[in-house]
């Protein structure tokens, strides 16, 4: 009896498949693709990305032409930056640009009060940032506050030089351009530890293994 039931089931299933196959050949049947993606992305050429939108890398890739030194940078800073960051880059009210990360000093009797009223001021590019290119890239993307994109590349190199000079990282005669900026050694670099979970996530156990390079496979692992 079970054997007969099984045969009946097979026959029925086959019939259903046959009907489905016949239906699928009808030309006006809507197409249910089952694809995980409609694949509607438009082809895009890397060279079409505006230069201003390209990532500036710590090794200097995508740094623009131009150059600027500490002296010009002092002028740019006074005109464009001092109103928010303070006359010498330490007074605020906005982010402190000069000094270490524990900037108020443990001997400062008003340290708790200062931290309480300006907690952000305890972080600085000079004290923490591991790469000098980050400073150029950030000023180019986001500064001056309220009018990003208005500084020339020469002005950005110059104000970067001034900030690095004030942090004791660059000599007073220092001039920055696309080849010298990535060479600047930042004090923060020696103190950086990558978060262990993030380090594990970017570690390639098997770099040769393909990860989802087949289009529309719906699997990237």
């Amino acid at each position, binding site marked *: 009896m079970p054997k007969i039931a099984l045969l009946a089931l097979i026959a029925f299933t086959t019939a259903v498949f046959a009907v489905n196959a016949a239906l699928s050949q009808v030309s006006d049947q809507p197409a249910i693709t089952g694809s*995980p*993606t*409609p*694949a*509607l*992305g*438009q*082809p*895009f050429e*890397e060279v079409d*990305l505006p230069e201003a*939108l390209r*990532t*500036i*890398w*710590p090794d200097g890739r995508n740094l623009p032409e131009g150059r600027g030194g500490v002296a010009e940078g002092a002028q740019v800073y006074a005109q464009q930056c001092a109103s*928010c960051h303070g006359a010498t880059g330490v007074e605020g009210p*906005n*982010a402190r640009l000069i000094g270490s*990360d*524990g900037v108020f000093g443990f001997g400062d009797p008003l340290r*708790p009060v200062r*931290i*309480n009223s300006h*907690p*952000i001021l305890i*972080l*600085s*590019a000079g004290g*923490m*940032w*591991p790469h000098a*290119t*980050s*400073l150029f*890239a*950030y000023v180019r*993307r*986001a500064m001056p506050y*309220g009018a*990003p994109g208005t500084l020339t590349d020469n002005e950005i190199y110059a104000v970067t030089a001034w900030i690095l000079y004030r942090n004791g990282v660059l000599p007073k005669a220092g001039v920055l351009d696309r080849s010298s900026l990535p060479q600047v050694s930042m004090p*923060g670099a020696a103190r*950086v*530890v990558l*978060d262990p*979970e*993030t380090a594990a*996530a*970017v570690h390639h156990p098997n*770099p040769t293994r*393909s*990860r*989802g*390079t*087949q*289009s*529309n*496979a719906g699997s*990237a*692992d």
Partner: protein
Amino acid sequence: MRPYANKLRLNRRSLLAGLTGAAVTAQTSAAQDGLMPWMQTLGDDDLPYGLPGPRVANVVRRPAADSPGFEIWHTPLEHLRGTITPNGLHFAVHHNGIPDIDPAEHRLVLHGMVARPLSFDLNSLARYPLVTRTAFIECAGNSATNAVSPWARDMTLGDVSGQISAAEWTGIPLRILFDEAGIDPAATWVIAEGADGGRHMRSLPLRPLVAEGMLALYQNGEPLRPSQGYPMRILMPGWEGNAQIKWLHRLELADRPAWSKDESGLYADPLANGKLRMMSLAMSVKSVITAPSGQQVIAPGPRQIEGLAWSGRGRIARVELSVDGGRTWTEARLQAPVQPKALTRFSLPWDWHNERAILMSRATDETGDMQPTRDIWHDIFAGHSFNHFNAIQAWSINRSGEVKNHYA
């Protein structure tokens, strides 16, 4: 809208006048007793987009007590119930303001270490299969005041820890878009950038984004609010808010990080050993008692101790409560469903009779991670460190029932 509303009101009035007239002829005695004023008048018109009523005008976001030079708005946790934050009350941190993005002009570019660089517009993205999930977002700097202030400042819960919110997010799994572009096997990082006036940028590990990341388009069923990244943002459940790039317009696959401003400084963690921990993304297990909480005054008698717990690494396994400053602990009841990387509400009945008390909640997540005390947190993080502060929050209650922020 107004002419239509007036017409509607006129019609309803004439109808009501007719009914009242009939009632008056049938019963000529005095007016009915026991009716509240609002039962005796026609109510107000509704609005095209509903707003909270004037009676709950105190349930609003508040700006951070210490302005760091950019906008920070805190969710008033002590006024909310449930586990979802209303869209208008979601916490927000904007480093360069809220951009006014034209959705017809906005493009998401996916490029770098991919086989086929692609550009997407909003209309195309709306045709992809969408998924929905509930997730919290917490700012890395949430509760920073309790991390850095040498004394416990007298503040409300929302003022101390209101940079945590949760929503039901709907969007496209990032792996679908990554697969369409074809991931280069050597890619390990994603450079994600927003279209705001500052183009906020972070370097993010690729593998977790493939596994769990979403291009979010909707929040609690409606298009993203401008404050939350309209028209699109990254949602990566469990990560610090700063990494979940709003107003997303560029994803570049790479084999190294770019070392953007925030990952280099503001969102790095100075450690007690002098090192600088960078690229820390997961928000550790944490909980806060929402009631009773800071600056409230409680009355004697039975009540519920209630609060919220969450973990960026999974589900909440257990929340324990203490009313004696941590000497004894009692396991709280968790309200189902307990979802991973979402808010979990806990409660426990309590009978208070004017005795001094110090209330604390201590959450443990499904990985076994338990909240540290404030002292233990500071054994790991530098004294001026203020990100990823997940230490146990304490509230002291005096004999008059006044609740205050407390270090225990």
